[in-house]
């Protein structure tokens, strides 16, 4: 049990319906684990329980060897990001990013310095005093990242963070996140329903379906698993290439 994040036998039912059935999951530090899952698979519930926003019926979660199940979300140092950027509408971009530091009552000079640095990292220096409604979807999502990363969380939970973006923005955001993750040694769970995105974003990969989680030991195993959908995808494209599309 030397893993960074360990989830053991986690279960949850809601109004008699099982949402999660004994989930086992582990994550090494400084890695990103992609979790592939459709809506209704229990993925959001899983992330919310890890963040402390929902309570599990049973199971254990430990972060760096310490149990966190009974901890309040404020104390866990785990940030949960939604599909929506959820920028605070009453605060400027600067203040949105500074939010977590203000909560920690850091002094003004430090806040100023770190926020400006973060604005540079996410490439939004010029947006400092804008209000959230002046930003595009991709820009909003960048601010949401900056706001989360600046408090140096131990673990980031990303729930379809690019789900609402158009294809092009989505690609640039995936790249940005990969760079940031490497640069800042981020540990994260990245939940998505998009097969390609799951493969691109994760160092490791897993799949959640009907409240059951399956971890793949390697990406190779994932590709070869018929249920992952990768083989279907490959067949589709290679058939197309061979001009056998009509046969489908």
């Amino acid at each position, binding site marked *: 049990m030397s893993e960074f994040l360990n989830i053991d036998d986690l279960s949850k039912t809601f109004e008699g319906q099982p949402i999660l059935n004994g989930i086992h999951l582990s994550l090494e530090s400084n890695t990103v684990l992609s979790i592939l899952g459709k809506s209704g698979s229990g993925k959001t519930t899983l992330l919310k329980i890890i*963040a*402390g*926003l929902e309570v599990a019926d049973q199971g254990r979660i430990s972060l760096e060897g310490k149990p966190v199940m009974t901890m*309040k*979300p*404020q104390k*866990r*140092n*785990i*940030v*949960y990001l*939604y599909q*929506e950027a*959820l920028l*605070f*509408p*009453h605060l400027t971009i600067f203040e949105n990013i500074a*939010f*977590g530091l*203000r*909560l*920690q009552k850091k002094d003004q000079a430090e806040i100023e310095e770190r926020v400006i640095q973060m604005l540079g990292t996410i490439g939004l220096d010029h947006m400092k005093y804008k209000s959230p409604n002046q930003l595009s979807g991709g820009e909003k999502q960048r601010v949401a990242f900056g*706001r*989360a990363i600046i*408090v140096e*969380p131990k673990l980031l939970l990303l729930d379809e963070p690019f789900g609402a973006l158009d294809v092009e923005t989505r690609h640039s955001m995936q790249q940005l996140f990969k760079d940031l993750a490497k640069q800042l040694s981020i540990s994260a769970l990245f939940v998505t329903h998009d097969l390609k995105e799951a493969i691109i974003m994760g160092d490791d990969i897993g799949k959640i379906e009907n409240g059951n989680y399956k971890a793949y030991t390697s990406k190779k195993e994932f590709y070869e698993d018929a249920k992952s959908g990768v083989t279907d995808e490959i067949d589709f494209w290679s058939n197309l290439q061979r001009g056998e599309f009509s046969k489908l």
Partner: protein
Amino acid sequence: MRKHIGQSIVGFIILFPIVFLLILSFGKQWFYPHILPNIWQTSQWESLFSPSFQLTKSLGLSLLLSISVGLVSTVTAFYFSKKIAYSYNKTTWLSLAYVPYLLSPIIFAVLIHFYFLKTGLSGSLLGVIIAQFLICFPFGIIICSTFWTSQIQSLENLSFTLGGSTTQTLKRVLLPLAKSTLLLCFFQCFLISWFEYGLTHFIGAGKVKTLTVSVFAYVNEANPFLAALAGFLLILPSILLLLVNKRLIFKTSKKLADYE
């Protein structure tokens, strides 16, 4: 042209009462068939500046009463509306919140008066504050409950995961975002209290002389001029409020109408 005439008539119907009250409030004698008062006076308005004048006292009392009811109701409604919004029985609680509105306040007063008598609250300002609060705050819940959208719940959760304590989240996220809702709720409760007569008169046993109670008192004394002055004072705050922000007044009926 027809439209123009129609709208002029509507404008007249709306503005006439205000002008009429204002004119009457300067009257001293109004014999039939004079259209306007045949003797005028300014002394009623002048005595408003004297603190011993009954109407001045009523004005102060009404302000104190309505501000207290508005504040207490808003704080309470905000707290409970959150609890309701996050609970499973949301719809049930919200439809129950309509009940005090459904029952006319005066009937509510008749039914609960006994308890106010027993506790010595009948005829006291505190008693009237409590009784009006019981009418206003369920109404406040209906107004505040629209604030707690899933978006707000997510923002609150986000603040938690970013390390915000409950107090910090309230201060830095929820209150700033709820500002307009809270303002609306306060003014609505203020106005319900400000406009209320039946319950105030019944629970206050005629001893708590608010502006509305004064209007009735002057009507019974057959003094239309003082009644008009008191009436004009009654519509003044809401007209001022309308000029500042008309939505603050209208939202109530809309909130009620949104109930489906």
